[in-house]
């Protein structure tokens, strides 16, 4: 066997790949499910927090800033480990899936709250005043005048942040979630061949390259006017 053939046999072993691709495919569904849950709950709760912050209740805002700061300062993997290995001592036993989802959703919530809040404060005061003076209520001014302008500003930073956090679903493999990386790693130790990892890597590219390319387009389409 030449070196090249040995290389192919090691990393692109057709037999091993044929055996394990259903596992990887299953892992892809778990990754998609986890990613969708994280994106929807993370961004929705981030927006809700930003709106709550706009209400301007001082002590509540301080608490919110502190929590958001903490979630931005901690590595996501530390939060996952904290939930998965820590909560059982308090009588709660979240699964790896739930721990990963909760941790990543919290992180996305913190980052998106910051971004939404920055977007809301970037809308000039005059917009508020003009909206209120035409007889709109506070809520009407917020939802019909300020928020539409704010959201437009937030799209580029929110897109890149969301992609970065969604990739964190791979961290679930550390707490035994059977997503792509988890499936690939166990297939490697079962087959004693690294081909499943290559399959797993390809699966990530299939999932995320379109998202990254779409993200690039969105970022230029909604780029901030400098």
């Amino acid at each position, binding site marked *: 066997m030449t070196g090249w053939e040995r290389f192919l046999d090691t990393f692109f072993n057709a037999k091993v790949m044929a055996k394990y691709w259903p596992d990887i495919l299953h892992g892809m569904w778990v990754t998609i499910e986890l990613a969708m849950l994280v994106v929807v709950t993370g961004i929705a709760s981030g927006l809700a927090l930003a709106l709550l912050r706009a209400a301007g209740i001082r002590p509540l805002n301080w608490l919110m800033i502190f929590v958001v700061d*903490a979630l931005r300062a901690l590595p996501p993997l530390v939060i996952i480990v*904290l939930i998965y290995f820590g909560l059982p001592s308090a009588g709660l036993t979240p699964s790896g899936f739930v721990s990963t989802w909760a941790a990543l959703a919290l992180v996305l919530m913190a980052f998106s709250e910051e971004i939404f809040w920055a977007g809301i404060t970037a809308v000039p005061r005059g917009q508020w005043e003009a909206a209120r003076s035409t007889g709109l209520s506070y809520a009407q001014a917020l939802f019909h005048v300020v928020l539409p302008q704010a959201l437009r500003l937030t799209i580029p930073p929110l897109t890149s942040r969301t992609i970065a956090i969604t990739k964190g679903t791979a*961290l679930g493999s550390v707490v035994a979630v059977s997503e792509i990386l988890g499936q690939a790693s166990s297939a490697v130790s079962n087959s004693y061949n*690294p081909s499943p990892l290559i399959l797993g890597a390809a699966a990530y590219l299939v999932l995320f390259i379109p998202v990254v390319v779409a993200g690039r387009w969105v970022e230029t389409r909604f780029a901030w006017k400098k």
Partner: protein
Amino acid sequence: MLDTFFNVEIMKAAWPILLAGLGNTLLLSVTVVPLGLLGGLMLALLARLHSPWVRWPLMAWVDFFRAFPPLVLLILLYAGLPFIGIELGGFGCVAIAFFLNTGAYYGEILRAGIDSVPTGQTEAARSTGLSASQTMAWVVLPQAVRNVLPDLMSNTLEVVKLTALGSVVAMPELLFQARQAQSLTYNPTPIVVAALVYFALLWPLVRLLSRLENRALRAG
């Protein structure tokens, strides 16, 4: 509750272990941040060659690493390479993975920074007799870095947080040490303390960034 999550006895016992982990986290950070910056600078300078033969592969390279989870890259190196007889160890794998992954992010930021410096700066510098590389090093780059400083800092924060991935490949950094201490004591206190240490270490940077970002959006 306090006894479970803030057990003082266990804190005392675990502290030296965690401190060693903190030392390794800092050591890892001061290694991988310059590595990532170096990778990024190389990419940003390559992007200056406005040839399509360079630009398209470069864009593909950056998008590739944006799409690829860093943990997957790390595992691929750590678990894959030994099969062809290359044993890099945890540290070597982390260094390469960070050079590639965070280099792509730093590269995008630095490229945007370099683009933000008016061409007149380059022209003026060249006309005073500076060479192309002198112009880049002394005129363009300092202004470029200043213009994208918040983004550079934000990425650096992410890189330092990413060093926690080292725990997966048995690097004895803060998270790894905390998990060791936790499994020895059957108590989550060491992980709680490790989280507090991360928080204490990175909170000032988060605060500063939050201020800078808010200011940038208002000015934008």
